[in-house]
């Protein structure tokens, strides 16, 4: 037991921070808000050269086979720098392919992810934003050696940049032995796909994607037919934990900026950071982001150990949603009027963290998951011991 970062983890973190501070100024995030594809390919390529995209992918496909906690360190630093790169959607999808796809699919995809030549995304949500099997209604009908997709997916990340989308669709009605969901690797350039960018709080790249008779080869099925739901859960668990890491990084930076500002901004003849109400708010902000960080890394560590971690991931995301928001909102307050101005950078963090609180599960959804494990299971609960997860 040693919950602090190891020497190696700390080195990776320092390295990532140094690189991103040099190569990824806030002006880049600003510029990419207006960009067609939403990310700078040169920066992406360099991040891949540093080994980041392959960090947690298997060695046999060009990765380094490191634990998720290492990848999370990178996402945390990318969050800190609000790096406008499609890292999260690519990693969440690539990890799922590494675990659940067949060899030919892996060989086709993973080496190109490691080298930075392939960007990935995923699509689950339709009109109902909850992460439950009933929310998937997009039908995949069989036609010879193809499935034909018709329907609409919402909030798809980085569509313009991604060549492949891992998509959840319905191949059967829900039944006793399956949720009837299957996963397909879809070429985003296929005829019949059209994306409409959504204007979001974060001004990031999310799209509404319509599928009109899109033909996908049967060979692109990931996992067994109709048995996609557990894979979706596997993917969402990791994606959520990694998003938490990204939120923690961005939120920490946001708090740092408030503390720095409070040291320098003078009102009533002294730095506002010398007023106790500001000091105590800064102390609270530190408690909140520390809590978010520790919950996040415990969840990731459990995943790495192969332990059940659904409850821990939900704990982390529910807390991140509430408390990271509280931090960035407090930071706005400490900055007074200037934080509300477009020309000042603070809002770049505020808008992103706020937006991320609404992705991959709301506080209510995640607390409902925790409550199930606390209340719908036999036996007594005890803090520090694993809870039984209720499906």
């Amino acid at each position: 037991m040693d919950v602090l970062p190891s020497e190696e983890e700390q080195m990776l973190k320092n390295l990532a921070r140094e690189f991103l501070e040099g190569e990824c100024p806030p002006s880049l995030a600003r510029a990419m808000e207006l960009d067609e594809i939403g990310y700078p390919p040169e920066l992406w390529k360099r991040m891949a050269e540093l080994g980041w995209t392959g960090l947690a992918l298997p060695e046999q496909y060009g990765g380094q086979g490191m634990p998720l906690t290492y990848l999370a360190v990178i996402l945390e630093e990318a969050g800190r720098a609000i790096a406008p790169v499609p890292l999260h959607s690519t990693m969440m999808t690539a990890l799922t392919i590494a675990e659940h796809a067949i060899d030919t699919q892996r060989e086709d995809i993973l080496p190109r992810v490691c080298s930075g030549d392939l960007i990935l995304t995923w699509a689950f949500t339709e009109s109902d934003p909850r992460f439950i099997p009933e929310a998937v209604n997009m039908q995949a009908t069989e036609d010879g050696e193809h499935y034909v997709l018709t329907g609409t997916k919402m909030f798809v990340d980085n569509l313009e940049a991604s060549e492949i989308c891992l998509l959840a669709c319905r191949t059967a009605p829900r039944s006793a032995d399956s949720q009837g969901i299957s996963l397909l690797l879809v070429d985003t350039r296929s005829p019949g796909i059209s994306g409409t960018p959504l204007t979001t709080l974060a001004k990031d790249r999310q799209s509404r994607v319509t599928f009109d008779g899109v033909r996908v080869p049967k060979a692109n099925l990931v996992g067994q037919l109709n048995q996609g739901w557990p894979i979706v859960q596997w993917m969402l668990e990791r994606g959520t934990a990694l998003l938490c890491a990204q939120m923690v990084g961005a939120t920490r930076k946001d708090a740092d900026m408030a503390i720095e500002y409070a040291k320098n901004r003078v009102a009533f003849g002294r730095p506002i950071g010398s007023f106790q109400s500001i000091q105590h708010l800064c102390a609270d902000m530190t408690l909140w982001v520390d809590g978010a960080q520790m919950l996040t890394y415990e969840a990731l560590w459990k995943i790495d150990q192969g332990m059940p971690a659904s409850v821990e991931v939900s704990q982390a995301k529910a807390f991140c949603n509430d408390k990271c928001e509280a931090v960035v909102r407090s930071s706005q307050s400490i900055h007074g009027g200037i934080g509300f101005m477009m020309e000042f950078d603070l809002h770049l963090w505020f808008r992103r963290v706020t937006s991320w609180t609404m992705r991959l599960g709301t506080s209510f959804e995640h607390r409902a998951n925790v409550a199930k494990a606390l209340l719908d299971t036999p036996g007594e609960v005890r803090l520090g011991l694993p809870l039984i997860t209720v499906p």
Partner: protein
Amino acid sequence: MDFGLTTEQEALRDEVAQFIKENVTPEVMAELESSLEGGRGPHYDAMMQKVADRGWVGISWPIEYGGQGGNRIDQYIVEEEFARVGIGVGGAGSGAPAILMAGTEEQKKEFLPGLLNGKIIFALGFTEPQAGADLAGLQCRAVRDGDEFVINGQKMYTSAAHYATHIYLMCRTDPDAPRHRGITIFLVPMDTPGITVRPLWTIQSDPPAPVGTTYGMPRTNEVFFEDVRIPVSTMLGEENQGWYVGAMGLNLDRVGASRYLISVRRDEDIINWIKTNKTNGHSLADDPAVRDKLAELWIEAQVCRLMTLRSMSIVERDGNFTYEGAAEKVWAPEHGVRTTETISQILGPYAQLLNGSEEAIEDGLFAHNLMGSFQSGINHGSVQVMRDQMARRGLGLPRG
């Protein structure tokens, strides 16, 4: 990063849990509940002797002073199991870390083994009527007279003073020096002539709180010193350096399983109660608002646990706290208050019933907790003062 226990540590935890099942008998619990003397009695003492025989006391302490020379996490495991049944072991305890760091060889030999096996009990003599949160304003005076000091003054809220063997006493030795530089710590036997103890009864005293109550402390004390003469050898650390010696010790004292468990046992208690009880056929576990709130509190409780593990990890690496000890001391007490208050709104009128009422839930545990929970946010460094520390020492914000 490693959030897990080793196989040996898990075995240790199981072993301690098993020991508690077998040895913390109803007789021991009855002594804990009825006694004003820190829960001590013949059954309790016999049980604690067995704990010591197993080498579970002072695990992380140096062997030459009665410890086991082991690691802090092992000690934490033992502390946690015992703290769950309301028993303090493990040898952190008041004053001990400061003696370990600043004591003379004689003092270490004199006090540490006794503190570990419970033969020596310290009362903490810090607070005074005019010096609480602002401890450096203390006035209790110690004047040098040859090989002795002569003490005159008063201490306030001195818990355990009525059964302690010694008092860990902060006095002003140089009234002309800057406030923090004129303070000295003395380790004074309570039977020294000139010391009088007067009880102060707390709101937890009547009716007596059931075992397991947070801050179920019925009594504390005022202690008066009148021409109390003590040898210079009772001084801990150097003359006029007492502030720094005390601060060091306090920081380590704040860390440990018992502190966080004080604040989180209620989360477990209410959830486990709801899981096994129905009223008029209705289970609170079916109420969506209750479910959401309990999950929220549970997540906060995890943060209490993780903050404690962080402090342990820092101690185990021989690192220094910048703000982490203070952070724990803000988060855990405030979480505890949120839980007790939420419980009162979950259980409604039943949660007002105190120990002794026929319909009281769990002997009034939740009601007594409600009376005591805020207390852990006041003593040992109030949450306000702890936030000041975090902001100034941890974040480098300027003084006013």
